[in-house]
């Protein structure tokens, strides 16, 4: 299949989904109170985007996402690099991290609530906590992905540590770093959402949980679509950048 055919087929599949979402509730195959027709949902979405209450919630969520990200990434990167560079530390903590990875971080959410109460600080702290681990793993993997051979060649030409860092490590790690950012953001966003849905008075996640409890399905679906679009947009942008950076990767 050529590229054009693939794109067209995907558009066609999307159209099928849209048609189903519109028609099934309208013609009674699905309960319209449980699954409102897509047009109703989109109308509601447009309305919601005009309300100041919703604006506020979006700002709150965005702020939490950004702040948590800014905390988690440098912290996780520093630890990850340490684990990758220092053999002793790495040997100790690697197995621990493996197990920690499979533990649901969300079970610690009540801890954060008990400590910080319910508010901005608690949500940011939890999201940062949850995201840091994946940043650690990815950073460690990124450092290891730099071929020892390349470093050896640079050293044999008398490069200083700083030069090795900027001229071998950074270009080598660039694609992996972007990948790390992308995946960390997915985890980060998820963390913020869970925190907001669980115990919060503000934020989009809280609104969605509320709408769900009150059976306000149109608002609920509108919120879900909004979040999905934002998440996918960010993801694809970073993926695009990754593609631009990694042409040299085998």
């Amino acid at each position: 299949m050529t590229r054009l055919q693939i794109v067209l087929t995907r558009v066609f599949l999307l159209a099928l989904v849209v048609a189903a979402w519109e028609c099934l509730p309208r013609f009674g195959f699905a309960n319209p109170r449980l699954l409102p027709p897509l047009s109703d949902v989109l109308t509601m979405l447009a309305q919601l985007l005009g309300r100041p209450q919703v604006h506020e919630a979006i700002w709150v969520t965005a702020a939490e996402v950004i702040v948590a990200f800014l905390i988690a990434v440098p912290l996780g990167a520093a630890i990850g690099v340490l684990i990758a560079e220092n053999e002793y530390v790495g040997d100790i903590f690697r197995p621990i991290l493996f197990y920690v990875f499979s533990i649901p971080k969300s079970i610690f959410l009540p801890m954060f609530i008990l400590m910080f109460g319910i508010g901005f600080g608690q949500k940011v702290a939890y999201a940062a906590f949850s995201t840091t681990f994946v940043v650690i793993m990815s950073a460690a993997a990124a450092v290891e992905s730099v071929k020892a051979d390349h470093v050896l060649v640079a050293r044999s030409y008398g490069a200083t540590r700083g030069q090795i860092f900027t001229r071998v490590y950074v270009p080598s790690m660039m694609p992996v770093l972007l990948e790390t950012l992308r995946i960390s953001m997915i985890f980060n966003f998820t963390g913020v959402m869970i925190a907001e849905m669980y115990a919060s008075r503000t934020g989009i996640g809280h609104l969605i949980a509320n709408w769900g409890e009150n059976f306000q399905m149109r608002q609920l679906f509108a919120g879900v679509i909004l979040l999905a679009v934002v998440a996918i947009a960010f993801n694809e942008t970073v993926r695009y950048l990754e593609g631009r950076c990694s042409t040299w990767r085998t």
Partner: protein
Amino acid sequence: MRWPAPSTARWLILVGLLAFWELMPRTKIIPELFLPALSKTLTVLYTDRYDYIEALGVTIYEVAIAMVFACGLGILVGAVVGGVALLRNLLLPIFSSLYAVPIVILYPIFTAWLGIGSESKIAFAAIYGFFPVMLSTAAGIRTIDPQYVLAARSMGATLSQQIARVIIPASIPTVLTGLRLGGALTIIGVVVAEMLTSAAGIGYLVTRYRTILDSPRVFAAILMILALSVLFDVLARSVEKRTLVWQTACRSPKRSRSHLQTVPAGAPA
């Protein structure tokens, strides 16, 4: 002074953490509200053990059923989508884009449709586990060395023989990794769902005790969940270890890189 061996250091860290857990609250350095003493936590766990075991039973039941769907469907769909080039080019990018969306935001939809009983948790956790398993299987299927199929063909194997005697045995390492991943994520999905909106299960206990600020019972519940997920992980890894030899042999080196890029090695929650 000589540094202790890594495994000893790990034990020391673990012991240190346990000591920290016990002493800090006792000496009031950390308020009991934030961190109840380890001994207190274990005590309430014992006194209320029937409640906890009952809740754990509900949770395990939900996890088991959700796992069947998540892993079963995930491996099947992943194998088909990853194996058939047409489907792969068409659908895989769509699925991996969808992965970016926090699935947890769909949970209220499930409670609205299915109520707050086990059905909504199972449905939600099944979807939660399905995506990563599917993506990981689809990626893993491609790492099978095509030379194996070529060799089988040269020996006169029919298509069904190729599938049954070469492709399936060669994909077992991938499938096992997918099961481990899927299982871990299903547990997470169930726990998160129970914490959010539920009437039973371990996650529900966490929330219930948190709202009445009963810290020791909250931590006891958390401990149970920890035990469950670590247990599952240990079990899954030990099964995987037995086939580790096939893993190193099966993967053709140039493909393993792309496998790492498609799916992160852990759980978003």
